[in-house]
């Protein structure tokens, strides 16, 4: 096969080499109406993209309006006024949103730090160290990805209750600081690390810990950051376990606080709820703007490479 098959395996790396695109153009030119087809697909894609973004736009616009106009129809898509009072009201309302956000942040940060310490160590050991039972332990760990949270939640609830950890952030932090997915991601990375680098360090008299800490781990910086971001967002967005382990408004995480604020059957003040939701979405937006590229790359790679 020609050189065009040796495409960069990184997703989003752009088109193939210039030679291939030249060939492509020749074919295109002979084909009737490729531009018509392309216009239709752009229209479809635009419609889809509008459908994806419109709800967020509505959320933001509504958060800036007086509650009495929140449901005015026809809907206004762009902010007609820039009234931030809903944000102030949301924050000072009966549900302690700021407190809930702080709780979410504490849990998400603790879980992420724990994960980026434990997962790379284990991933390194499974990739580069030799010890009896290594592969069977790894397979066992991986199979835990198949265990849905709903099966373990009842015993976990009883466990937390026994140790007096219900309604305590530790009930979410402790189970969160280790996990098979992170180990798997980091093991994949370390497997790709040339053995010579490790051996050279060992020859120079570095201990196993030094080799890991000073040589291997710095090389895994990108993989570790990805894991940290994914873990943070996963914890920040979590609802199921927090809704069962936490049961007072002071310990509640932000998702729980927002559901409380929304009230049964959406009876809460819509403009304020949308203001609070806008705040809650901010971290995802920041992550999205800063790290979109490599998150997409690392998420898609495992699937395509199998």
């Amino acid at each position: 096969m020609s050189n065009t098959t040796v495409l960069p395996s990184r997703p989003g790396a752009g088109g193939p080499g210039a030679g291939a695109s030249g060939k492509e153009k020749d074919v295109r030119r002979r084909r009737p109406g490729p531009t018509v087809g392309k216009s239709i697909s752009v229209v479809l894609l635009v419609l889809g993209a509008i459908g994806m973004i419109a709800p967020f736009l509505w959320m933001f616009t509504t958060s800036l309006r007086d509650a009495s106009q929140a449901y005015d129809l026809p809907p206004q898509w762009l902010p007609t006024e820039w009234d931030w009072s809903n944000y102030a009201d949301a924050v000072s309302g009966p549900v302690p949103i700021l407190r809930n956000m702080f709780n979410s942040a504490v849990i998400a940060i603790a879980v992420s730090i724990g994960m980026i310490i434990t997962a790379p160590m284990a991933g390194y050991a499974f990739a580069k160290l030799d010890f009896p039972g290594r592969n069977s332990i790894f397979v066992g760990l991986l199979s835990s990805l198949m265990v849905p949270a709903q099966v373990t939640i009842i015993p976990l609830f009883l466990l937390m209750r026994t140790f007096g950890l219900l309604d305590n952030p530790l009930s979410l932090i402790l189970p969160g600081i280790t996990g098979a997915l992170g180990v798997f991601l980091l093991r994949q990375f370390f497997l790709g690390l040339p053995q010579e680098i490790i051996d050279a360090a060992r020859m120079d008299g570095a201990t196993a810990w030094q080799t890991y800490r000073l040589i291997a781990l710095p090389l895994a910086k990108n993989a570790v950051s990805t894991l940290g971001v994914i873990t943070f967002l996963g914890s920040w967005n979590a609802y199921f376990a927090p809704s069962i382990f936490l049961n007072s408004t002071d310990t509640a995480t932000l998702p729980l606080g927002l559901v409380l604020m929304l009230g049964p059957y959406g009876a809460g003040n819509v403009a304020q709820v949308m203001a609070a939701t806008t705040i809650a979405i901010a971290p995802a937006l920041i992550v999205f703007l800063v790290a979109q590229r490599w998150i997409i790359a690392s998420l898609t790679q495992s699937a395509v490479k199998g």
Partner: protein
Amino acid sequence: MTLTAPKTALPPAPASGRGGQPGHRTAARRREALTGYLFTAPTIIGFLVFILGPLVAALYLSLTKYNILTAPKFVGLDNYARMFRDERLATTYGNTVLYVGAAVVLINGFALLFAVLINQRLPRALTYVFRSAYFFPYLVALVYVSIIWQALFQKDTGILNYYLTALGGERIDWLNSSEFSKVSVIIVDTWRNVGFAMLIFVAALQEVPKDMVEAARMDGANEWQVFRRITLPMISQATFFNITITIIGAFQIYESIIVLTRGGPGDASRSVVMYIAEVAFNKFDMGYASAIAVTLFVIIMLVTMVQFRLRKSWVNNE
């Protein structure tokens, strides 16, 4: 380096490929093994305490009657027998299976459509904008997007019905009718997850060899034949991954329903997971709830295993 004579008492060290004297080799290997165990210890402990232990405990609890206040009482398979007489369980399982089917078809269908469209030679900035727009909802918590959607779904004040009536349609009771409450849950689920599946497909489509496609076109194959005979087989790995992920995800659907419909009207949109949570944490019928949870686990495991079995027959492995 000083050579130390190998001690006969030591077992023969297997070739490790690394330097060092035979006498030191076993010591080094022992030390490496110890390091390996230390490095993996936190993860293994977490796995034992928070996954394997609870899993075994759930299996045990599913054979007991347990209301938290008094000690668990062993009742054999009673809880499992009870499931067959539980009409609410049948309803919630029915809903869940519907959600799973809809997720597999709709998420992957739309994702593949958008992926193929996006994978054309479009201006790079446009591709970037589209990819970002489709992917963003996936990063936002399902709770938050559900909060937005429940406002859009409101019967009298929601935007959806406004545009629907503007186009001459009837108002739909999205959240409180037994048919449309399910539809709403499916819409939100599809909307949020389509972007991730699309990215997986786009990544796979970029790996399809261009010259293979060109050659087929030269030979007179039309676009559909190219797609059916070349593209689809080449991206089967991604299709497999996406279907597996959507099945597992949809079986566990939970918080969107809580926000949108609270499972109602009645049980019309309630999922199995909601039912498990209700039985366990409102009625404190821990044994029965564990039994239902175990069936959910077994079903997810079976579906995954069947998927992997089928995989051999339709996934193209280079």
